[in-house]
């Protein structure tokens, strides 16, 4: 009797729940990249959806694109996503989202709303990267055919991560960091920008990758400066480098020190640590930026530079520090000019002098930040010279 009851109950459990929230893999529309634009008063959301059969190692069909771009329109991102089910065969699955591209026009209007939507979504994670499409729509970025990696978002994502590690002027920011920075008083958001270079008309055609050097390519350029959630300006390459230096995001980059006409001593930065120290002097905030970097000499193009001589190396240290200082100065000046504290001076002040901070935080960006006195304490140490000292090449 007990057995019968148990059998009936378990059958009911299995049959009546209907396996809810079950979605087979081939019912998914896997979205890897989302692009947001603003047009005619409503959101235009582009979903770059992968076509799994094209990506997988077996049966590749070169006539079809590796993915599809679906577009929806609506007053909110959610409405746009749902509206595109009128065209798309399945419902979107954003669990594996990799890249979130925001058009510049939309960024200038403010990105707070869509960040909120992404945060609330129970399917989306917070580990995807956010970038700004510079000077163009997000849609055009997502339609690009890229060589080497079939899926453009993958390509862009990897490029973002790699360049962040090895070439300073990009930062890869994930959604949780965006949320962090938008919520903190005393720091402003900064996001990397991406744009298409080359022949833009060929971007969305498979002929783009038929050539050895694709006519249309993407490139990360510049860092967007936000005030609140609105984009207000861009940092150029030097200023971006300064930004990464100061915010302790620098891992590796390249420094060129001229040593003659068109000849340089090239140094690879292998590690870098930066610290901010805030203090208040005579009622005015003073911030001390200390950067400690280490490097390796990777290029000696002038025979006049003797890398085995400690005095020469010390001289190179000083020159490298000056080089980095120029970038940092440029970044600070630009931030002050834009009146947006993207460098985190405010937070540092809040941590070290909370009483003072409470009096200035309401007006920080407009009045106090531009007047901050900045001291630079940059030290560079060259540790190695590669696998050889002075080469025997005679120039």
């Amino acid at each position, binding site marked *: 009797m007990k057995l019968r009851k148990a059998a009936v109950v378990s059958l009911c459990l299995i049959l009546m729940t209907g396996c809810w929230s079950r979605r087979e*893999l081939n019912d998914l529309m896997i979205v890897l990249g989302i692009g947001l634009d603003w047009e005619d008063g409503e959101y235009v959301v582009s979903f770059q959806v992968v076509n799994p059969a094209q*990506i997988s190692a077996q049966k590749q069909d070169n006539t079809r694109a590796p993915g599809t771009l679906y577009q929806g329109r609506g007053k909110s991102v959610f409405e746009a996503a749902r509206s595109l089910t009128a065209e798309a065969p399945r419902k979107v699955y954003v669990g594996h989202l990799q890249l979130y591209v925001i058009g510049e026009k939309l960024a200038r209007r403010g990105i707070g709303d869509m960040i909120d939507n992404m945060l609330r979504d129970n399917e989306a994670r917070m580990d995807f990267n956010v970038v700004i499409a510079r000077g163009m729509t997000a849609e055009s970025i997502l339609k690009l055919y890229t060589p080497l990696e079939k899926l453009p978002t993958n390509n862009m994502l990897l490029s973002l991560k790699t360049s962040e590690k090895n070439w300073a002027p990009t930062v890869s920011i994930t959604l949780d960091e965006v949320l962090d920075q938008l919520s903190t008083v005393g720091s402003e958001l900064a996001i990397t920008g991406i744009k298409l270079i080359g022949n833009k008309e060929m971007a969305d055609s498979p002929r783009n990758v038929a050539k050895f050097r694709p006519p249309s390519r993407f490139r990360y350029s510049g860092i967007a400066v936000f005030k609140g959630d609105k984009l207000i300006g861009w940092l150029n390459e030097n200023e971006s480098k300064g930004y990464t230096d100061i915010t302790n995001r620098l891992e590796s980059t390249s420094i060129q020190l001229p040593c003659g006409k068109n000849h340089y001593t090239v140094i690879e930065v292998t590690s870098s640590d930066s610290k901010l120290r805030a203090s208040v002097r005579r009622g005015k905030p003073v911030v001390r930026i200390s950067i400690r970097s280490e490097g390796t000499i990777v290029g000696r193009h002038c025979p006049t530079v003797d890398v085995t001589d400690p005095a020469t190396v010390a001289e190179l240290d000083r020159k490298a520090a000056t080089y980095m200082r120029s970038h940092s100065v440029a970044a600070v000046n630009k931030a002050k000019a834009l009146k947006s504290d993207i460098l985190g001076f405010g937070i540092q002040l809040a941590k070290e002098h909370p009483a003072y901070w409470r009096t200035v935080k309401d007006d920080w960006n407009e009045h106090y930040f531009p007047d901050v006195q900045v001291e630079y304490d940059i030290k560079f140490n060259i540790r190695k010279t590669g696998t050889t000292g002075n080469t025997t090449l005679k120039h």
Partner: protein
Amino acid sequence: MGVNDKTVKAESAHMHRKQKAYERQKNVTQILPEYSGVPVEPDIRRSMEFILREMGGSDDVVVREIRYEDSKAPAAAVVYIDGLTDAAAVNRYIEDVLQHSLAGIKEHATDDRLDRFEAAKELLFGIGSVRTVDDMSALYLELLSGEAIIMLDGFDYAYCVDIRKWKGRDITESTNQTSVRGPRESFTETLRDNTAMIRRKIKDPRLWLETMTIGRLTKTDVSLMYMNGIAKPSVIETARHRLQSIDIDSVLDSGYIEELIEDNKLTLFPAVYNTELPDNVASQLLEGKVAILVDGTPNVLIVPTQFVSFLQSNEDYYQRAFYASLLRILRYLSLGISLLFPSFYIAITTYHRDMLPTQLLISLAAQREGVPFPAFVEAVVMELTFEILREAGLRMPRAIGQAVSVVGTLVIGQAAVEAGIVSAAMVIVVSITAISTFTLPSYTMSIPVRILRFAFMGAAASFGLFGTIMGLFALLLHLCSLRSFGEPYMAPLSPYKGVDMGDGLLRLPRWLMFKRPDTAKGSGSTRYRNRG
């Protein structure tokens, strides 16, 4: 042939004691209730007539009559079953002895027939163990066990001499449990050979043996073997009691007995260990377990048993410790894989796609394009196919059996993938699961694993990982509640005994395993002494 009065008396007293003990053991009156109480007739001809008639005149019952030279009536008769008894011994010794003894006794002209009988018995001693029977049921039991019955005219009891000999299987290598290093001989169908093999491993007088007869019609001999002083008395008593309470028509294999002596009859998991290898039995006897040997089958039962015993193999103790420990860990891993891999696959691809890396997700999604069935149906179909092929492979003749199972599965899997009925990933999952099942050393344990795999797949398809974990909890609760002959089934994992874990999960080197495990009565007693 000098018969000394004193010797005869002493010997008869001794035989009397032995007789009583034997009868107690054999519980004679329960064996053939129809014939119990029917005495052996003093008139030898009537007895023989009875015996032959009740057996329906079966022509493998051989009767040899011995007559005095000058009389027509038989003075003695030997009855035996051809094929079960050593006919040559009958020829050579019994007739000889009887001729001589009868002649000699006649010579001495004693009138005391009792003396004559006892004298004959003395001579028969030289042949094999001799017992007396006075009851037809006991006589039939001995006759059909292969002993020769010797009846002397005028006496209402007969002798039975143990000169059994029949063609049994030779001691060969085991086909089911192979070993790379270690003894290879396996049990045969003859009880005496099996007990002898165990005795050869343990040459200690404390290895005790008790035999009983189970089965109304088959009257199978079942022996209980244990090390007195190491095995727990409660276990021995329980085993003895349960065996004696079995009232069944036939016992053809130890499996019959296994089902009837289990603690918990509603579980899938075996609570009784069975093996074909004598070294396995010997090592477990030394740990305080009790072995049950059944005549007619090479499978020996061992009680009480633990879950971890089914994941241990004898090889572990003969190979080096580190390697054996790694192998054990591998076996536990395989157990997990063979039980849970398909369920995890179904649960993750259907409910928890976020847990997969993106590239893998895209690859799997690509494979599933065009497949008509949901993942659960695919999995069940493939698993069922595998089970069918596996069973088919068992029944096929040796030569093509292996080829069919391997080739069959590969070909069918490949063809199904190409036809678009299942996805390639599913074939891989199912193959790996099937192969992991084969690493379990004990076939008896692979059965619940295979059955529960389907249950877990159902749970995963209905409730995702939540269902799988709930299923695991339920399984764990069930396993921890099991007992095997009063001992906890999940020892040494629960109740946790760190000292015994050395043999449970890993195989610690011999110089670290000092004490006998908890199953032994003298738990804590030393079994390894370093002679430094």
